[in-house]
């Protein structure tokens, strides 16, 4: 027995509160595509992706129609290319990115993730080639996303790679300077990267994953905000309870869609990523949701506490709704993709340092933040090092997706369009950390990594 109230509540979630399935991501293993010839390897990659994913978009659209549930993206994640291409006789990995791009276009998806390497403890030759190919690969493709895992709680932080990625991010920005450094929006570095994350730019299919798998990312900050509006002034226990209930309902929609997609595509269901992923649309903002806790503006004192509680309550509600929860799962706090974050950053109330504090308790990290184009590679590496330390030493995933916009400075604005949004360029502490970064080596794993 479904009541009229429940039907109307559901309808409002979709129509007014921007509840949607953010992405159905098909993970495809490319382990069997290795070959010594680049052409042969690329052909195998293309054929396999198209063979597995040619029905993905149509299936997503049919499910969307059946339930009246918007499914925004259909995407593909693949085995890290540094592993797949390791046997090839080449130092330039750009052809692999172009192949992924071509396959994504053939399947009709809007992003493919996996131009990736896992270097938390050190480089293989192939990892090094992939990292050096990133700027050209991202400049010469439309839909390819790149991610590099630089650190983990088990291994510590690969500071050589942290240093290299500062330079790679700068170079990627330069090669896509005509598009406001758009290449950097498709490049993310991680500590403790999840191997089943369906969200871009960080999606890849880890080496421990199956041949092919469906992972679903859900969203719905608007639904949680709306629920909180009904308990204004109530104590925080009530707030936690309200968030849990909303998260439960959102996650159940994700599970329904994931299971149906898995059945129709004859591909096993992997996980639900129960993240609150904002968009630049009004009413779909994590910042505004935090303000609903009673904060005048996101970034003021109390923001970290509110975010910690939000992140935790979302997980507790979601975990009850699905037995297979994975990926990033929590609240995302990208700046350019969130209307409230943009407003708070533009007013000066939300600063990079506060965002860093917030990443200690949210699910990802410093995400989609535009910084001045004259920020040095070492400073970018320093920001990455701090963020990697937060993840490594607190046993959580953290990430950095910074956009140093060539020719632009603090106070100016950068426009990416669509879901990537727009962002004010934020101020960066200019005191040098170059001597620290240039030491290189590894930061040893924290003591609590010794769990055996």
């Amino acid at each position, binding site marked *: *027995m*479904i*009541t*009229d109230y*429940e*039907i*109307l509540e*559901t*309808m409002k979630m*979709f*129509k007014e509160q921007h509840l949607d399935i953010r992405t159905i991501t098909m993970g495809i293993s490319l382990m069997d595509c290795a070959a010594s010839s680049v052409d042969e390897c690329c052909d195998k990659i293309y054929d396999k992706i198209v063979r597995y994913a040619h029905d993905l978009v149509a299936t997503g659209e*049919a499910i969307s*129609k*059946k*339930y*009246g*549930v918007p499914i925004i993206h259909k995407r593909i994640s693949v085995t890290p290319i540094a592993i797949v291409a390791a046997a090839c006789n080449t130092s330039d990995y750009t052809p692999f990115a172009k192949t992924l791009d071509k396959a994504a276009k053939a399947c009709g998806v809007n992003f493919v993730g996996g131009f990736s390497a896992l270097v938390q403890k050190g480089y293989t030759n192939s990892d090094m080639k992939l990292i050096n190919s990133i700027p050209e690969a991202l400049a010469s493709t439309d839909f390819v996303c790149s991610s590099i895992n630089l650190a983990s709680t088990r291994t510590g932080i690969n500071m050589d790679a942290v240093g290299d990625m500062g330079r790679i991010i700068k170079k990627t920005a330069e090669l896509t300077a005509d598009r406001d450094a758009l290449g950097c929006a498709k490049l993310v570095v991680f500590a403790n990267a999840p191997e089943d994350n369906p969200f871009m730019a960080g999606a890849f299919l880890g080496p421990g994953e199956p041949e092919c798998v469906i992972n679903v990312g859900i969203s719905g900050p608007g639904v949680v905000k709306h629920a909180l509006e009904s308990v204004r002034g109530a104590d925080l226990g009530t707030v936690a309870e309200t968030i849990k209930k909303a998260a439960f*309902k959102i996650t*159940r*929609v994700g*599970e*329904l869609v994931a299971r149906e997609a898995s059945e129709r595509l004859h591909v096993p269901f992997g996980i639900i990523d129960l993240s609150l992923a904002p968009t630049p649309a009004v009413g779909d903002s994590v910042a505004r949701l935090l303000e609903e806790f009673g904060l005048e503006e996101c970034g003021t004192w109390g923001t970290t506490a509110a975010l910690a509680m939000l992140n935790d309550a979302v997980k507790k509600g979601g975990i*009850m709704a699905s037995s297979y929860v994975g990926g990033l799962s929590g609240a995302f706090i990208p700046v350019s993709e969130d209307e409230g974050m943009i407003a708070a950053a533009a007013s000066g109330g939300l600063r990079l340092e506060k965002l860093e504090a917030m990443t200690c308790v949210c699910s990802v990290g410093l995400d989609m933040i535009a910084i001045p184009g004259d920020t040095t590679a070492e400073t970018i590496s320093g920001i990455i090092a701090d963020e990697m330390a937060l993840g490594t030493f607190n046993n959580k995933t953290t990430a950095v997706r910074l956009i140093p916009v060539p020719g632009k400075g603090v106070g100016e604005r950068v426009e990416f369009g669509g879901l990537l949004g727009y962002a004010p360029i934020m101020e960066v502490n200019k005191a040098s950390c170059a001597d620290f970064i240039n030491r290189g080596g590894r930061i040893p794993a924290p003591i609590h990594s010794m769990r055996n």
Partner: protein
Amino acid sequence: MESNKNTAVISVIGKDRVGIIAGVATLLSQNDINIKDISQTILDGIFTMIMMVDLKDNVIENSDIVEKLNALGEELGVTITIQHTDLFDRMHRI
């Protein structure tokens, strides 16, 4: 309302006017969709109608009924949605 495997919920929300029920019912009958239950209320000042209908042959995805309902909604100045009942069972029942 009863729910089972082969039913969908059609919800109509908007400003009350003459002919909403007639319009929706006519469209459904033209498309051979059987209405099992109807309830109608004014909720928070807004006209709200909820219909439970039978589904045959995955009619939601295999026909243009969604587009037709959207067009009718525009004509009548209301929002019409059709959703498979499983969605509500999953969201609101443990």
